[in-house]
């Protein structure tokens, strides 16, 4: 009844609307927020009073509202003397069994200093022999049966470690804390590569966990010359990164430059290697990729042994490799696993695919508008006949189809995995067929767009593929306004810009422009494995020779034996 009344009221009477309305203040932070932000003291020293440390940690970690922060106070008995202690860790990041069995149990249980073995009897009187001990050393040496324990004296160091899954132990009277590695958070296991699939290569890929990634590199390289330096980026996130290089191969200036750039990034946070890439690249205006990004450890190892530097970012399954030059982005990790004849054939195909991706639509437009004599006469008749019923100009046709293709590609990524590829293929087929049937586009154009799209998938590097997709539209425009003259002008400008581009000191078109000694340099096409004697000279490595002139010594020895017998 009351409902009906309300409805009638709503219909015939004025009822003020009560809309829930939340608007963020235009100012980024209220004055109170600003005050709060300044209470954080990252560089404060650890106090000797546990109570003070406890209060500090409570404020720093907002333990009253943070549900996953564990602050565990307890008592340690050392040589008959009791000390208040505090353990801090983050639930979900630490391993509870490790904490219970290898931290709390030794600390809270009986230790050699306070058991009854120390009881002595003299003249019928029992007394306890108490040694004067250094508490910090005693805890470090005898009470923490862990392989990774660090003494730290600043709260910033404590928070760094605790945030990455360690536990920190505070003891009253000590102005240091013990950071113990008890990481136990869940992470993805090593899986096969998703985007850089090869037939004959390794089936391992990097994961999100930094230490797992460094261990893969260490295992594959198996040399003490591999240096893995740790650093962190981000004022808030303090994301851990690892700079990996071969000490006896990589150029010292290159190492210094990489460290310099990485240590001079002032951002609040980074979440992936893609962020780092954009922050340390030489020229951010150029769309072309300037460093190699790979999910394959074997590719990273190959580049490390060549004298390049790898950068791993915690939380990212991609490794950055610097410097990266143009030919690197046209090379597949499979190239080195195959015989050079196979690899070079694939490289030729990829090279052609690159040209088709970049130029085919633009050249088609240019030819159709300005240079029709290039097309053989029978083919020209076919094209003209097929375009007869199409009402749009070629430029509109091609833009329509190219944009549709990009749309299908983008939508294919967003559609849930089981039906994504099917929708992509069906979408392309149906759309193409329907467009031709509806006389929106000519069949030749469908072939051009499909071939361009297909060839773009032959480019091994995702970023380069993206770059070419962007520039393809530029060449279509240039072909439209000035035919091959426009395309030539665009190409000239693009190549000039790229020739001037450098990636960590290496020319982008190395070793071709500026031309170095191609005999002693790694070029686009690869030599047989026994002939790869030199490292790329644009890397200016400490060990330019990769292998001796005769690497297949067994071959020589056999020949020598034959000669001796002869």
């Amino acid at each position, binding site marked *: 009844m009351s409902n009906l009344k309300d409805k009638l009221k709503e219909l015939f009477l004025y009822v003020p609307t009560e809309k829930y309305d939340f608007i963020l203040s235009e100012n980024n932070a209220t004055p109170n927020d600003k005050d709060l932000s300044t209470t954080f003291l990252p560089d404060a020293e650890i106090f000797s009073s546990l109570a003070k440390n406890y209060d500090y940690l409570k404020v720093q970690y907002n333990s009253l509202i943070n549900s996953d922060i564990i602050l565990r106070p307890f008592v340690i008995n050392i040589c008959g003397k009791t000390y208040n202690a505090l353990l801090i860790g983050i639930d979900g990041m630490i391993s509870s069994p490790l904490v219970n069995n290898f931290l709390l149990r030794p600390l809270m249980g009986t230790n050699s200093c306070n058991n009854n073995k120390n009881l002595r009897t003299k003249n019928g009187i029992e007394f306890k022999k108490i040694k004067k001990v250094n508490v910090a050393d005693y805890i470090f040496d005898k009470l923490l049966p862990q392989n990774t324990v660090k003494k730290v004296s600043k709260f910033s160091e404590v928070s760094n470690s605790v945030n990455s899954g360690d536990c920190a132990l505070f003891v009253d009277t000590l102005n240091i804390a013990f950071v113990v590695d008890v990481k136990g958070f869940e992470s993805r296991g090593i899986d096969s590569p998703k985007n850089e699939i090869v037939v004959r290569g390794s089936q391992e890929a990097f994961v999100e966990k930094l230490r797992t990634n460094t261990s893969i590199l260490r295992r594959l390289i198996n040399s003490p010359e591999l240096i893995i330096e740790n650093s962190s980026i981000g004022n808030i996130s303090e994301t851990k990164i690892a700079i990996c290089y071969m000490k006896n191969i990589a150029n010292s200036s290159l190492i210094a430059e990489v460290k310099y750039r990485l240590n001079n990034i002032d951002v609040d946070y980074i979440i992936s290697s893609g962020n780092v890439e954009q922050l340390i690249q030489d020229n951010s205006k150029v769309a072309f990729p300037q460093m190699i990004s790979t999910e394959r450890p074997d590719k990273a190892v190959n580049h490390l042994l060549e004298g390049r530097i790898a950068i791993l970012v915690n939380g990212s399954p991609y490794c950055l490799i610097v410097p990266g030059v143009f030919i690197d982005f046209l090379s597949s990790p499979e190239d080195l696993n195959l015989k050079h004849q196979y690899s070079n054939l694939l490289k030729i195909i990829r090279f052609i695919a690159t040209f088709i991706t970049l130029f085919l639509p633009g050249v088609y437009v240019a*030819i159709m508008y*300005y*240079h029709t*004599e*290039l097309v*053989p*006469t029978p083919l020209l008749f076919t094209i003209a006949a097929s375009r007869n019923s199409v009402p749009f100009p070629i430029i509109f046709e091609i833009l329509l189809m190219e944009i549709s293709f990009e749309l299908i590609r983008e939508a294919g990524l967003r559609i849930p995995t089981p039906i994504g590829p099917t929708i992509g293929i069906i979408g392309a087929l149906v759309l193409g067929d329907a467009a031709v049937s509806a006389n929106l586009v000519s069949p030749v154009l469908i072939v051009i767009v499909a071939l361009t799209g297909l060839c773009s998938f032959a480019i091994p590097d995702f970023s380069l593929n993206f770059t070419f997709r962007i520039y393809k539209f530029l060449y279509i425009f240039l072909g439209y306004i*000035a*035919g*091959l*003259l*426009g*395309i*030539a*002008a*665009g*190409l*000239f*400008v693009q*190549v*000039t*810009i*790229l*020739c*001037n581009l450098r990636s960590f000191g290496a*020319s982008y*078109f190395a070793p*071709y*422009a*500026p*031309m170095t000694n191609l005999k002693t340099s790694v070029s686009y096409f690869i030599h047989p494995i026994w002939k790869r004697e030199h490292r790329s000279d644009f890397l200016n490595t400490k060990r330019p020779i990769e292998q001796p002139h005769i690497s297949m010594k067994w071959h020589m020895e056999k020949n020598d034996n034959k000669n001796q017998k002869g």
Partner: protein
Amino acid sequence: MNSIEKIGKFEVIALFITIISNNIIINISTIIVNNSSTGAWLNIIYLTLICLVFIFFICKFFKPFINSDILDVSEFLGGKILKTIMSILYVALFIISSATCIRYFSNSLKLIYFNYTPLVFLILLMIIPVVIANRYGLKGISGANLIFLPVAVFSIITLFFTASQDFVWERLFPALGYGAKETFLLQITNIFAFDVIGYLYFLKPFLKKETDFKKISIIAVILCGLYLLLSIISLLMSFSFIMQTDETLSLYLLTRLISFGNFLQRVDAIFIFIWILTILSYLSLNLFIITQIIKKTINLKSTAQIIYPIAVFIFSIGLLFKNIMSIKLFISNFYNIYSAILIFIISFIILLLAYIKKKKKQGVKNEI
């Protein structure tokens, strides 16, 4: 020059080949054939030998002047006045050669492909990339040139071999053309075709290794001679020399002869595409040298400010010509003589006198 940009010998040789290719594309070989008729090929061999001797002396005279170009040598000889005069003469030479080249080629393109496109638009489309390339300096220009060069060389060699099916050897004769006196004495003015030597005067300080200067100079002259010989022989053997007098781009005429079966019968646009790249490289180098000369003469800190005005100036001069014939007349009546006198006589004399002066100074120092 004060620039820190240095380039290797491959880059410099590639730049020279581009200059030569450009000369051939914009009809230098036709002008020589018109001047010397069937004796042109012998004339070129003869001029190549003369240029080699000339280069030998140039290298010898340049040797005491480390890291110097012709302007530095002029300053050493005649102070700032001579340097300024030489700067003006060379800036004029390069501006004229750029303007004639850009206009000649754009006009030819208009005639061949872009009948309905305004000429200004075509010239603009050629000058804009040149300006952008110059913003990136010599490294960018030489690098791009090095990338395009193999394709350009391949195109001309392909042109020679594919057109060879229409060659008639008899057209090379009479080998002495209008006579021995004309071929070897009066037609010495054809030496303007070796204007690549003019660039040698300026590119020396940009070399990574100055010791390569002699090697590069000799290679440049030999390549220039070979290229010219190849193009002249192709032209002579393909057409009767009387036929091609009024052709805009003679090499283009050769491309029209090429066909691959019944399917590809007109591939000239592909050649034109490659030649556009070559011409853009050539124009970029010219603009770079002009800006460097001006920078050096009036002590500018950077060339960035003068790239645009010079480009506009070249663009305007290019528009001054009425048509292709007026450019042809201008080249054969003025430019050829001007460049030959400046490169082969004035510069040579300055180098010789500066060399003597330097030797004398060194002699005095040694005596002290």
